[in-house]
């Protein structure tokens, strides 16, 4: 940090055309984990101001979803949050279920939590890997991306697709646990626990990493609350808030887990919190697989509409087919909202229905968008070389923010 104090609210000082500051354009072609541009004003190599220019990967997910049948929004929202598809899918379906007044059966709730936790681990590993490459360590990048693989294989076994699972549908889920899933999951979890110890030696407690991240990009607790950042980044600043605990959905109210928090709110804490959350997710997956109740995986309202061929498929292959209701559903007029704790933070959904074939208003806020203040507020006063550290540590994903 420089000695000089820059007041970020007093931006008039910055003479855009003047020669006092160097303006550096970072991006827009994929400066990190997606297309965005960072406009950086530099005094020597001290950052005076950062203006994140977002929207390069805006894909009109809201507009598209307002012009399609309700079920067709599932793949759309998934493609926005690619490393974190299950949570987007879940948040949307929870909102639609509130409108429809359907409650999924307990087994489906547990299965939702199960895929969500598997997805949280892959999302955090993705974040840790990207952070690694930002700091110049291709080792941890390869390791983290490689270690996503066993978990993605689990998702593939359960849902039939590696990333874009489209697994959660209004009323329940599409497939039941396949044979041998529990044993395989247990092996994968034990493998990951052992690997986390290796990560500690080679990456988390590596003196180089500590030197580059400790006290870099600190966001104090009060500021974190004031700026409205979410997810692991918020908890790294010491705020005890997790949607899974405070507004439980799926099976989380029956599950026992901790919400790790840190004190300092610097880049190092944001790395540590992700490692701690992976440990919690491992604990959660074990618990879910132990406690998962028997029973239907789809709500009775949907099950009763299945025709005999579909019912036979359900009994034999544990596969839920779609009744015509899925195409023609018209949730009653009204508004609904839902919140879900995704890997990077809280997703918020708001949908207004007029009882029509399409949603009338489709609105969602993704966690990366809400973590945007990090660029403007915590970078100021740091050296330019610290910018990748801060960018990497907040696990920012431009396609997700732009929606």
């Amino acid at each position, binding site marked *: 940090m420089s000695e000089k104090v820059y007041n970020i609210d007093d931006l008039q000082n910055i003479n855009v055309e003047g020669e006092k500051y160097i303006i550096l354009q970072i991006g827009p072609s994929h400066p990190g984990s997606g297309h965005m541009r960072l406009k950086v004003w530099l005094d020597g190599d001290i950052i005076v101001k950062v203006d994140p220019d977002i929207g390069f990967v805006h894909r009109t997910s809201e507009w598209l979803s307002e012009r399609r049948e309700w079920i*067709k929004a599932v793949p759309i929202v998934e493609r926005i949050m690619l490393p974190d598809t299950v949570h987007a899918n879940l948040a949307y379906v929870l909102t639609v279920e509130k409108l429809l007044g359907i409650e999924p059966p307990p087994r489906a709730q547990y299965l939702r939590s199960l895929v969500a936790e598997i997805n949280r681990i892959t999302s955090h590993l993705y974040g840790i890997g990207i952070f690694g490459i930002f700091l110049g360590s291709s080792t941890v990048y390869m390791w983290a991306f490689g270690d996503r693989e066993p978990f993605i294989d689990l998702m593939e076994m359960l849902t039939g697709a590696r990333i874009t699972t489209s697994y959660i549908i209004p009323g329940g889920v599409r497939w039941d646990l*396949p044979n041998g899933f529990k044993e395989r999951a247990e092996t994968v979890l034990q493998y990951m626990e052992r690997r986390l110890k290796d990560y500690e030696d080679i990456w988390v407690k590596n003196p180089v990493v500590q030197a580059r991240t400790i006290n870099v990009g600190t966001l104090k607790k009060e500021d974190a609350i004031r700026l409205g950042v979410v997810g692991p980044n918020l908890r790294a600043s010491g705020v005890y808030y997790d949607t899974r605990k405070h507004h439980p959905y799926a099976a989380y109210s029956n599950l026992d887990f901790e919400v790790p928090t840190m004190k300092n709110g610097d880049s190092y804490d944001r790395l540590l919190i992700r490692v701690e959350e992976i440990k919690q997710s491992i604990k959660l997956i074990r618990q879910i697989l132990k406690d998962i109740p028997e029973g239907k995986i789809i709500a009775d309202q949907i099950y009763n509409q299945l025709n005999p061929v579909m019912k036979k498929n359900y009994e034999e292959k544990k596969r839920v087919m779609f009744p015509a209701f899925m195409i023609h559903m018209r949730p009653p007029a009204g508004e609904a909202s839902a919140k879900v704790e995704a890997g990077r933070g809280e997703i918020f959904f708001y949908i207004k229905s007029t009882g029509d074939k399409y949603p009338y208003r489709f609105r969602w806020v993704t966690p990366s968008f809400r973590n945007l203040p990090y660029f403007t507020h915590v970078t100021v006063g740091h050296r330019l070389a610290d910018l990748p550290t801060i960018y990497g540590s907040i696990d920012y994903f431009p396609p997700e923010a732009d929606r």
Partner: protein
Amino acid sequence: MSEVRKPRDPLTGHVKALAKGFKYLVEPNRMTLDYPAETMKLPPNYRGFFTVDDKKCIGCSMCEMVCPPEAITMVPRIIGEGGKTIPAPEGEKEVKGPKRTKRPVVNWGKCIFCYFCVDVCPVDAFIPTQVHDLAFEKDSEYRPSYEDYLKPPEEPYKNSKKVISKADLKRGVSYEPAP
């Protein structure tokens, strides 16, 4: 959490990191699949290319309606006797006189393999396969004709070694010959 955060003293830290790196240098935990010499046998519910059973399909267009990227086109089809364009297939003798109906064709350039169509079909007429690695040379191959669409997708690298992935305590994922 303060004990997690405590900086490691640099000497121990570097030595531990190097030792771990060296360990993996000598004993790497590779999970690479030697594609295409080895190809995977995927789980039975894996969502790959699929075709439709011409005899089962009733031409209801539900699959076309549910497809999120609108990849399915319904093509006209005449079944039964007197069919001019396409001769009537076996097993449909009971249909008297030509009957106009429709059949789905998937545009592979648009399909996202969500399997909504497969699941919505009231007679379960789609035939899913686990073939996922097809490449198309020409634009027209993306949009097959109905006759081409009926052919089951041909797996590339038929002579490759078939393996299945397995969770492995040491390597995360390992591959062993498929049974």
